[in-house]
């Protein structure tokens, strides 16, 4: 977040720019790119049958002898000091084992915030956990009650009597704007960036648009609630967790509780949806502390309401996007600035301007974000943090300009495709957004769109079409370790602590490992979700697939070297170096002379070994500094809007994705479509009702926080360009987040096309369409 970081990153970018391509990861394209093997097939989710049978055990389902249950008390006020905390009735209630408050909670340090300057850190909140009598946000945990049953704990939690000396709280977005902070950087990017005098260019532009767009807070609503089962044996801790950060959680707990790292084990084999929410929050710490105090295993599962109150979501934003264009529609100015909420104790900067920075070529630019400091539950990363809401603003603005200029919105975008990264001039590793646009327009039947709003109608329903681009950066995490163990019977086990939140990581990496090691699928076992395995970083930024892929590739290289050494002089491979062989058909094969080959089993047998095991870490992700690496999408949508009620129905959605190699089409479709459904929810109905008078969330449940119901979700068509990225492992880029981007703008643009009404505030609810006058 600092100026130092900006300087550092910019010098790395500069240095890496000088380094010859072939010295860098991705400099020589991954030989597996374009090979037709297990990668690219429709292998079904390997743990599917287990999940369907209910045999997959989630963190809050682990049975343990002597288990007891926790309930939490969340603060009903936003700021203040506890003046009275009477726990006597709760302690006396049936079954109660412990009431934990700031008075008897073990004294613990703070959890370091996750961030680009500290990749090992996992904290989503830098606030103390039950350490003092201060209340810092509405929903903060005030007490934990442990009892023999969940019902007893829930009941006793209600009996705690709390008095608070309330203090004034910051909870008003508009009122906080004058005090907004301007951070030096947003993730790894310098925050404020400009080229030329964009404001002047805007004033002089032949055509222009300049408007403010707002998006509300969004809350996480993964199907699995946050839950842990914590269990001590002596000084050793086992935590069954639902987490996106297995190894970093273990490290954080070890540090916090003063344990050796090897004495903490975090297990998270299955996670019922992450999306950025399943990080490190207060509940893990509370359960671990409580378990230690009663010396019994503790189950703590958050209620849906508690997820809203204690696990942050996406910040609201207010964004200005202004675009100037010349008579041909070439952008002369592009401005994207705004405000979001990020108190100093939270980790997520909601990077809504970052996507815009590489999306279009323009003669002048201005970008910058400001942070508001409100007293809220720490906001956090939520599927495509930044790009999801940022694409709504910029892609609405492009549509406004297209309408003002009477140019087809697809055409306007094509005219402003950049050849290199607009700000840095770095080449794109691969970018085929233009191809995606053409492919999509054709497939969707875009030419049936009327350029005039309100021109198509079916009874009371106005029909419209819209489109919008989305993008999301390629991210690969440094430092993911992975072990390959190969046994004499030709079986390979790959192990890493990484996490599968339901998207199919183990399945896809099994496919990858089969190709990388030259083994059949059924010879591969992929182990993950256990901090005792080689440590992988947090799953975030759609980075896990390529991070693990890089680790597998690195480990396979190391394995090759070790196998050649083991093979020795009696082997047909004798004298060959690692670069001269490849892993294929269950062994090593000389590239020049494929008759020189030996199976893994034969090599191990001759060497008198049962197995061989190597652990390696993926190469540092320097390719991201050499190239501009991003995924793109072209979204198309058709809507119907009732001219009577303003009800909005999305009838068709198409996403064309330019995301590199598709490793498994079946799972890719599911990821991308899932992202699009989340984008649909963002467009239609999702909104945290944050009462600015009190600082309290007023819809903490799924009856009132409206995610799309089945009937809201139309047929969604998903397709892709299928062009591999020559600079990434397997030619792939992450696909977890790109799906959500651009969808809300495509829908808002279609609404404009249907009704002639430009809605710049999400969600696109019917009151915004019919207004108070019913106009």
């Amino acid at each position, binding site marked *: 977040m600092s100026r130092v970081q900006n300087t550092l990153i910019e010098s790395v970018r500069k240095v890496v720019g000088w380094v010859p391509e072939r010295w860098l990861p991705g400099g020589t394209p991954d030989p597996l790119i374009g090979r037709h093997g297990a990668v690219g097939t429709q292998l079904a989710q390997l743990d599917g049958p287990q999940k369907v049978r209910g045999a997959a055990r989630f963190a809050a389902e682990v049975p343990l002898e002597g288990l007891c249950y926790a309930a939490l008390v*969340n603060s*009903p*006020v936003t700021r203040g000091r506890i003046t009275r905390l009477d726990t006597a009735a709760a302690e006396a209630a*049936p079954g109660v084992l412990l009431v934990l408050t700031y008075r008897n909670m073990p004294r613990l340090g703070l959890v370091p915030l996750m961030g680009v300057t500290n990749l090992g850190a996992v904290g989503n909140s830098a606030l103390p956990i039950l350490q003092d009598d201060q209340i810092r946000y*509405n929903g903060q945990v005030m007490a934990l009650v442990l009892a023999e049953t969940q*019902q007893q704990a*829930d*009941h006793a939690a*209600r009996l705690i009597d709390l008095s608070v000396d309330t203090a004034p709280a910051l909870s008003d977005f508009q009122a906080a704007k004058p005090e907004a902070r301007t951070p030096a950087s947003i993730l790894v990017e310098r925050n404020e960036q400009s080229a030329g005098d964009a404001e002047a260019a805007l004033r002089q532009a032949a055509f222009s648009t300049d408007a403010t767009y707002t998006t509300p807070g969004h809350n996480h609503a993964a199907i699995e609630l946050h839950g842990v089962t914590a269990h001590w044996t002596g000084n050793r801790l086992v935590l069954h967790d639902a987490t996106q950060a297995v190894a970093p959680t273990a490290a954080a707990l070890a540090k916090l509780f003063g344990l050796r790292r090897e004495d903490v084990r975090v297990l998270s084999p299955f996670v019922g949806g992450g999306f950025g929410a399943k990080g490190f929050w207060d509940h893990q710490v509370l359960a671990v502390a409580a378990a230690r105090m009663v010396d019994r295993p503790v189950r703590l599962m958050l209620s849906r309401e508690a997820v809203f109150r204690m696990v942050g979501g996406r910040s609201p934003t207010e964004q200005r996007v202004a675009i100037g264009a010349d008579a041909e529609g070439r952008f002369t100015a592009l401005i994207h600035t705004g405000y979001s909420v990020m108190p100093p104790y939270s980790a997520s900067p909601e990077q809504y301007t970052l996507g815009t920075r590489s999306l279009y070529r323009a003669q002048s630019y201005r970008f910058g974000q400001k942070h508001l400091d409100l007293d809220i539950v720490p906001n956090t990363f939520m599927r495509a943090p930044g790009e999801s809401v940022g694409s709504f603003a910029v892609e609405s603005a492009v549509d406004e300009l297209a309408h003002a200029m009477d140019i087809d919105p697809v055409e306007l975008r094509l005219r402003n495709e950049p050849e290199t990264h607009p700000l840095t001039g770095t080449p794109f590793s691969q970018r085929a957004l233009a191809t995606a646009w053409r492919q999509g327009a054709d497939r969707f039947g875009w030419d049936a769109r009327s350029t005039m709003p309100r021109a198509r109608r079916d009874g*009371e329903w106005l029909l419209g079409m819209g489109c919008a681009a989305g993008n999301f950066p390629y991210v690969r995490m440094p430092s993911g370790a992975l072990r390959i163990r190969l046994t004499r019977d030709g079986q390979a086990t790959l192990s890493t602590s990484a996490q599968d939140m339901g998207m199919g990581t183990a399945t896809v990496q099994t496919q990858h490992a089969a190709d990388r090691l030259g083994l059949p699928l059924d010879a591969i076992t992929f182990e993950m979700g256990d901090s005792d395995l080689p440590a992988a970083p947090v799953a975030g930024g759609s980075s896990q697939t390529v991070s693990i892929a890089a680790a597998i590739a690195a480990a396979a290289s190391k394995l090759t070297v070790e196998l050649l050494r083991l093979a020795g002089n009696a082997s047909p491979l004798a004298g060959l170096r690692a670069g001269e062989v490849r892993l294929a058909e269950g062994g090593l094969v000389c590239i020049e002379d494929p008759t020189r080959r030996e199976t893994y089993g034969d090599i191990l047998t001759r060497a008198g070994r049962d197995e061989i095991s190597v652990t390696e870490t993926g190469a540092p992700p320097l390719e991201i500094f050499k190239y501009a690496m991003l995924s793109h999408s072209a979204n198309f949508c058709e809507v119907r809007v009732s001219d*009577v*009620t*303003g*009800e909005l*129905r999305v009838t068709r959605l198409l996403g064309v994705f330019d995301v590199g190699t598709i490793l498994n089409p079946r799972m890719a479709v599911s990821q991308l479509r899932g992202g699009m459904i989340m984008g649909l929810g963002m467009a*239609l*109905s999702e909104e945290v*009702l944050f*009462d600015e*008078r*009190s600082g*309290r969330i*007023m*819809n903490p449940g799924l*009856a*009132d926080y*409206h995610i*799309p*119901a*089945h*009937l*809201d979700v139309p047929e969604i068509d998903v397709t892709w360009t299928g062009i591999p990225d020559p600079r990434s492992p397997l030619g792939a880029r992450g696909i977890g987040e790109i799906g959500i981007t651009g969808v809300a703008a495509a829908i808002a643009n279609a609404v404009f096309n249907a009704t002639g009404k430009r809605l710049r505030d999400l969600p696109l*609810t*019917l*009151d915004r369409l*019919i*207004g*108070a*006058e*019913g106009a």
Partner: protein
Amino acid sequence: MNPFTYRRATTAPEAAAAAALPGHRLLGGGTNLVDLMRKGVEHPETLIDVTGFSQQIELTPGGGLLIGGAVRNSALAAHPQVRRDYPLLSRAVLTGASAQIRNMATVAGNVMQRTRCTYFADPAASRCNKRVPGSGCDAQGGFTRYHAILGGSSACIATHPSDMCVALAALDATLHLLGPDGPRALPLSEFHRLPGDTPHLETELRPGEIITGVELPPPLPAMRSAYRKVRDRASYAFALVSVGACITVENGHFAEIRLAFGGIAHRPWRATRAEAALRSGPATPEAVEAALKLEFAEARPLDGNAFKLPLARRSAAALLAQLIGETA
């Protein structure tokens, strides 16, 4: 949730006797009451399960239908006679909640369900005159999207959320009650109260009374009816505004018209003024427009729900236009 005792009543008189006891509450499908217990809004000491009787849907001697209080919402909606003679009711019920909830929810429980005001549902932090009479109303000046535009008071602006009851109001249904003084009947549209300064008194149900059933009058010949619900999702959301209407038209004039709204008041809102203005008059868009204006003359929309006034008028006008079209 507080510890409570669970009992099953086997007859209506037994349930009514138990309902009179302090701390006792009747339990239908539990889809509303149990939620409110979890949230700490309701704290019964004893629950009396009343789903074991009054489960029939029967023809009345006059040709109407008597629907038992314990009939499940899904059974009601699927009943062949209901679908044939009162499609409005079937439609309205099916627009409510989800299939799972409708499978549990009972007719009496649906009538008695409480408001969805989020300040009402938040005893930990919000003031509410329904929960604690005289404590204040945090909904005023807060999120009022689901709140009343008609019949509210300074003490309470909550709405009754039921879809089924809007249809029942438009169908002129009668509630059958059983209490210490024996059975009595009350028109459904007079059963729910306006909040005034006693918003905690929500219905005309007396202590020790239970709902045993709902009676529908025989369907009118050539009656056309429909239900339209407008909400924030395509399904599984409460009404922002809903409209139920039954009409018969003769020679271009309304012979009969019954019109009710949901989502806009503390009770299912029978539009008696509009009905009176239209009855026997010409079935034209202009007449409908004027009548609706009259009906909403005293509407007091709030900042957060001003859109409901045009929404209600336009939805009703469109629905009536559709029905008039069907009779032509």
